[in-house]
């Protein structure tokens, strides 16, 4: 998509088309001849895996929409019918429902990869921001999709999330009524969620196009975080990375298939097999696993508006991350301190997910007992500590580290790092590179 094109039309038809719509050239330059750093590891294959996830969700979703009925009286039954009566409906729904989990699993790995190797740093800020936009759209699509089966968790999840907007001063009340199209979550809400759930994947596909465009202008980052300096540092995308990504995709599909065929409901919640009842709340309302960390942040604050602001800020902070990290070194492979703080950040993220799945008053760490009841640190307090670390990582640690940290020596080039690794210890015979 950028730089000199190496595409040479081979047939008369290709030459004819190339002068009118150079789409084959675009595809060739983007996915065949595209010079790619030769040292990408398997953390880089999740981009390809995510493309597969998006296509699986769109194809299975279009087909499911042919059988689903977006009406409060029929939605639950239509999903049951898909499972029981529609030919292969059980398979298609299982693919779509578990596909959402696989999509988020892959996107989280993709994002943590970007965080560790500094893929958000100059000159890839726009690439990173577009990625955060995709992530937001994914969360919106996943939330609305979860509402469609009209089970108890669907209904009450929709209730809780739409009520978040009620926390806004003055406009909160009218805004929630506007979102609902009525006095509560009802048929109007279900209809519009279905419409938007169908729309958003195509928006995601559009932003993915921009994301790939923004990737192909500066080119891929890589595990050393060092920029490509010469053609010795790169390989053509095909066959080197098509084969590598293809292998990773096959492994990923094996895991995906395990869930689809052997544990189709393990990532969902049993209460969603109870039809929505506006008069009874489930004992414990929880979102899907991939939204739990944000749910934990929401609950960590003893104020409604405060919780809402903090939850949205948890994602909003990602938009400004490229300007919060002051280090000149991209890859944390050469940042001994940042590396540890990053590991704690991953633990904090997982811990927040755990807190989100638990009752806030449950005991996380028992410390003695009182009146026969165990006392100690509750999940609420654990969530508060982890929330503090989550924000401190972005707002305090990354900005300060750039000034206090002494990076390790980096190889002179990507090619050197590859050959240096073969020769022995990483640093031997390798000249330190200038900061970048």
């Amino acid at each position, binding site marked *: 998509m950028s730089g000199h094109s190496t595409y040479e039309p081979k047939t008369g038809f290709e030459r004819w088309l190339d002068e009118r719509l150079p789409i084959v050239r675009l595809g060739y330059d983007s996915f065949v001849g595209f010079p790619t750093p030769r040292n990408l590891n398997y953390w880089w294959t999740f981009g390809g895996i995510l493309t597969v996830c998006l296509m699986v969700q769109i194809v299975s979703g279009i087909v499911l929409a042919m059988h689903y009925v977006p009406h409060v009286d029929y939605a639950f039954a239509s999903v049951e019918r898909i499972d029981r009566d529609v030919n292969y409906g059980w398979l298609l729904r299982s693919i779509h429902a578990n596909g959402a989990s696989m999509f988020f699993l892959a996107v989280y790995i993709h994002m943590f990869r970007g965080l560790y190797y500094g893929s958000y740093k100059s000159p890839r800020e726009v690439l990173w921001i577009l990625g955060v936009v995709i992530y937001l759209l994914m969360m919106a699509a996943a939330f609305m999709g979860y509402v469609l089966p009209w089970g108890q968790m669907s209904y*009450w999840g929709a*209730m809780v999330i739409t009520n978040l907007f009620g926390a806004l001063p003055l406009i909160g009340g009218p805004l929630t009524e506007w979102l609902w*199209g009525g006095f*509560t979550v009802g048929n*109007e809400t279900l209809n519009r969620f279905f419409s938007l759930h169908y729309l958003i994947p195509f928006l995601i596909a559009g932003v993915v196009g921009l994301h790939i465009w923004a990737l192909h202008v500066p080119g891929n980052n890589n595990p050393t975080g060092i920029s490509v300096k010469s053609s010795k540092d790169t390989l053509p995308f095909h066959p080197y990375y098509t084969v590598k990504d293809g292998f990773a995709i096959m492994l990923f599909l094996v895991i995906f298939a395990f869930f689809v065929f052997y544990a189709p409901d393990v990532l969902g919640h049993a209460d969603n097999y109870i039809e929505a009842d506006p008069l009874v709340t489930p004992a414990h309302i929880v979102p899907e696993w991939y939204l739990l960390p944000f749910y934990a942040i929401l609950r960590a604050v003893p104020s409604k508006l405060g919780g809402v602001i903090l939850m949205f800020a948890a994602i909003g902070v990602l938009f400004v991350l490229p300007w919060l990290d002051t280090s000149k070194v991209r890859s944390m492979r050469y940042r001994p301190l940042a590396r540890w703080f990053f590991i704690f950040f991953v633990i904090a993220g997982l811990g927040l997910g755990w807190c989100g799945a638990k009752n806030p008053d449950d005991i996380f760490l028992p410390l003695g007992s009182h009146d026969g009841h165990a006392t100690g640190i509750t999940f609420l307090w654990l969530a508060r500590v982890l929330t503090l670390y989550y924000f401190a990582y972005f707002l305090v640690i990354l900005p300060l580290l750039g000034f206090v940290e002494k990076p390790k020596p980096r190889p002179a080039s990507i090619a050197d790092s590859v050959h240096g690794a073969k020769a022995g210890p990483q640093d031997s015979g390798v000249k330190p590179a200038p900061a970048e």
Partner: protein
Amino acid sequence: MSDVTPSPDANGHSEPSRRDFIYIAAGGAVAVGGAFVLWPFIDQMNPAADTLALASIRAPFNDIAEGEQVTVMWRGGPVFIRRRTQADIESARAVELAALPDKDARNENEPGAEATDPNRSALSAPVNEGVEVPEDVRASLIVMKGNCTHLGCVPVGDGAGDYNGWFCPCHGSHYDAAGRIRRGPAPENLHIPPYSFVSSTTIQIG
């Protein structure tokens, strides 16, 4: 071009030309027209006429025993009708207004009233002409929308929670015997819908 682009004056400023005026006028017209076109696309999401029309239901209260609660559906959500015991009423009346996080009664029958127990109970509801309902019955009745003011869950009733009223287990909001928020993340007292006594045995909600 010289007839529409006057040369700068001594201070380096250009006089606005007739073309500048056309730009601004056309831009303004597009903005206003755009807003008019946008509005139907926004307003269609607001409750439709038939949704708004489903506004009132009637519910009998005479067969609710003391200390019991029934839940009826109004506007797609739950409404609690609770017949409180004398002890409930006394405990609710004993609370100082200063101890309440939300001092507004949140009562659509009495907008802006203070959150005292009589202002929250059915004593605040209008009684239709010719209808007789004993005062102690009205004092014992409390009618509230059954959605927690935090995130909309349905709180557990039957004297639940630390304040002898309602408790929302999802995020830990405690309400007292008058349905007033006492502790937890919920910002407001349970809301009281507009209702009135239409007979000696029945209330109309909405």
